């Protein structure tokens, strides 16, 4: 069984920042665990700009921002455990972790959960029709295109105009794909104005508000959807070969949901609440890292 003073689950913006700040605050026995091969969390797949203004004073891409954080991390002796899945966390302050060839327990004094978030997916919506291939969440599509260099389809519909939806609309366009439209249930786009200007307006991608996807068509692969106008109720068919859903993010708190508040447990970053920008997840990580190092407790 491994032992540490401070266990940090998740090596994304919040987790790395928390590790570095706890180290700087004097904590010398820190274990940072992540399922990825390298620290960075979701940042490496975020090839777009918009990172780092608050933290580093100039605009960076996700991978550049991650590189800055990793550089800070490299100046510490925080132990990093890659490719490791945390299976459970128990009230007696032990985590069970699983990795290739090894399943082990880690006893810790304090825990920072920086597990990020997961995406809502289309199964949670009352959408009728078939369940064919060719439907991806925006984050999934982002990973597949940016990290795996895969080609998902040619005629793209995007449901949801949050930041991720708009950024992926541009990404597909830059990949030479035809984004038919970004569909938004609300009357206004969901993400930040700068993403609307840079991703939607600048590339003249049609944004349709007040509509949703009510039905999916296609047998093997998706062939189209029914778009429903939420105000008038009218429906129209739109052909597509790919549907990308950007339906919002859910803080990933599964590991601690049965534990509740504890004076040894800290949450940082998107698993605490969804942050608009990575810099603010980092800022929260820094604060939480200091508190954890000092043994101070923050309210949930």
């Amino acid at each position: 069984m491994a032992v540490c003073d401070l266990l940090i689950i998740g090596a994304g913006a919040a987790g790395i920042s928390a590790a570095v700040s706890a180290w700087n605050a004097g904590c010398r026995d820190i274990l940072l665990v992540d399922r990825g091969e390298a620290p960075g969390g979701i940042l490496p797949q975020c090839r777009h700009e918009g990172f780092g203004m608050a933290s580093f004073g100039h605009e960076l891409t996700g991978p550049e921002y991650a590189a800055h954080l990793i550089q800070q991390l490299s100046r510490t002796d925080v132990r990093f455990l890659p490719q490791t899945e945390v299976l459970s966390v128990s009230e007696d302050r032990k985590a069970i972790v699983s990795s290739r060839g090894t399943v082990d327990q880690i006893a810790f004094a304090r825990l920072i959960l920086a597990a990020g978030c997961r995406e809502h997916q289309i199964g949670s919506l009352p959408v009728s029709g078939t369940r064919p291939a060719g439907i991806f969440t925006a984050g999934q599509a982002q990973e597949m295109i940016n990290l795996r260099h895969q080609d998902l389809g040619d005629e793209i519909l995007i449901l949801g105009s949050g930041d991720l939806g708009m950024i992926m609309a541009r990404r597909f366009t830059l990949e030479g794909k035809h984004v038919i439209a970004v569909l938004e249930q609300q009357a206004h786009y969901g993400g930040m104005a700068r993403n609307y200007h840079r991703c939607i307006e600048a590339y003249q991608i049609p944004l349709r508000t007040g509509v949703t996807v009510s039905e999916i068509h296609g047998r093997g692969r998706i062939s189209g959807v029914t778009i429903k106008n939420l105000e008038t109720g009218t429906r129209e068919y739109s052909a597509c070969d790919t549907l990308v859903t950007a339906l919002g993010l859910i803080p990933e708190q599964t590991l601690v949901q049965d534990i509740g508040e504890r004076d040894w447990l800290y949450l940082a970053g998107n698993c605490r609440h969804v942050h608009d920008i990575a810099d603010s997840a980092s800022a929260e990580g820094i604060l939480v890292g200091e508190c954890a190092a000092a043994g101070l407790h923050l309210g949930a």
Partner: protein
Amino acid sequence: MMAGAESFDVAVIGGGLLGCFAARELCRWRLKTVLVETRGDVCTGISRANTAIVYPGYDHKPGTLKAEMTVRANAGFEQLCRELDVPFSRCGSMMLSFGEKADAVLRKKYLQGMENHVPGLRLISGEEAREHEATLNPDVRLALYSPTAGTVNPWQLGIAACENAIQNGVQLRLNTSVTGILADSGVYRLQTDRGELSARAVVNCAGLSADRVHALLFPSDIRIAPTAGDYLLLDRTAAKPSHILQYEPEEKGKGLTMVPTVGGSLLVGPSERENSLDYAASEDGLASVRTLAKKLIPELNLEDTIRSFAAVRPIPQYRDGRRINSFVIEHPASGFWSLIGIRTPGLTCARELGLHIAGQLAYELDAQSNPAFNPVRKGIPRVHELTFAQRKQFAAQLPDFGEIVCICEDVSKGEILEAIRRGAVTVDGVKRRVCTGMGRCQGARCQQKVLELLSRTLQIPEHAVTKDGRGSEILRERHGSL
């Protein structure tokens, strides 16, 4: 290829639940059996969506084959699932009434059940029902409690039967469609798109196509009218009942069932639609399921829904449109058996039906019993079911079983590779064997990893990997270099 047809004793047409069990039960005799399936994997037709209930047997008229088989099958389900190493939960069921008409139905089913020798049946008050399930609607006034009802995962059961059949010598021919059947001096010659097969006997378990397969050789007055039903699947965290709940409506055809599945999620449905061959969920159907679910358990949080889908049932009817309630087992000539329109309780009775047909065929073919028959199949080891100590030891011996690929359902790379070794060729084929992508993110985080493992293991390009068979490719072929 033209070197004469390969010959077998029995050809089973259709690799769904029924075909897999027919093939498995035939192994109890010394018969050379081939199982022929149109698609690239077994249990990919109507077996892939189902209410997943092992019925107790009070739904059917005393003396009918359905009643007899259901009661017998139910009693033997623990043993069957132990043999095949498939999870089975005897969670019990409550059929719930909110009004007079439903009360009468429950009383009738209770008496019917007593006559069918269903064990443990009781009519209980709404109050007692709420003692069993605290979250039930307070308007429930009467319940038919049945402790023997249970639930099993339909495709896991079918795949297990198929693996057991193969282990006992059955040959599986995938991607093979039967296009014609000829009777030729005591032998049936099956024309397929992959050459000819000959067999002394044929078992037609072709599911939605069983009527057409039958008609390849024999005239029949029976056809299949498919009926679709819509379902919701709720996350394992949902406040779910511990029993199967069945809502007996005041108005015919508007019932609902909730099943706490062996996988931990809650299955809710179906709302039925006639004459639909479409595996497409309907808006009205889903809306009705949602309304009724809230009626049964008012505090159920439908935001825990992670998936909705449609299932198709093969309802048999005469050409004039009259529906047939019983299992249709056609035996137009010696050695030719057709199972047409086997719907509810088809999952419960799949093994009994297989055994029934196998016994009949063994007699017709004068086959000897097979002393080497081994009914035991070992399932894929599931890391999630192991204790910490077992898991630690297991990962140390087999490193792939420490590498977690599906986060929601806690499935390792080792399990996925074993699923592929045992015949999974698609993302959904892996899902049906080891539950990848069954959880709350529905594959958003693991699909690409499963896809990569399929591509590497099967040595096919990534763009050739499908979700669930031809036409459901997930990626486009990348042209040009990166």
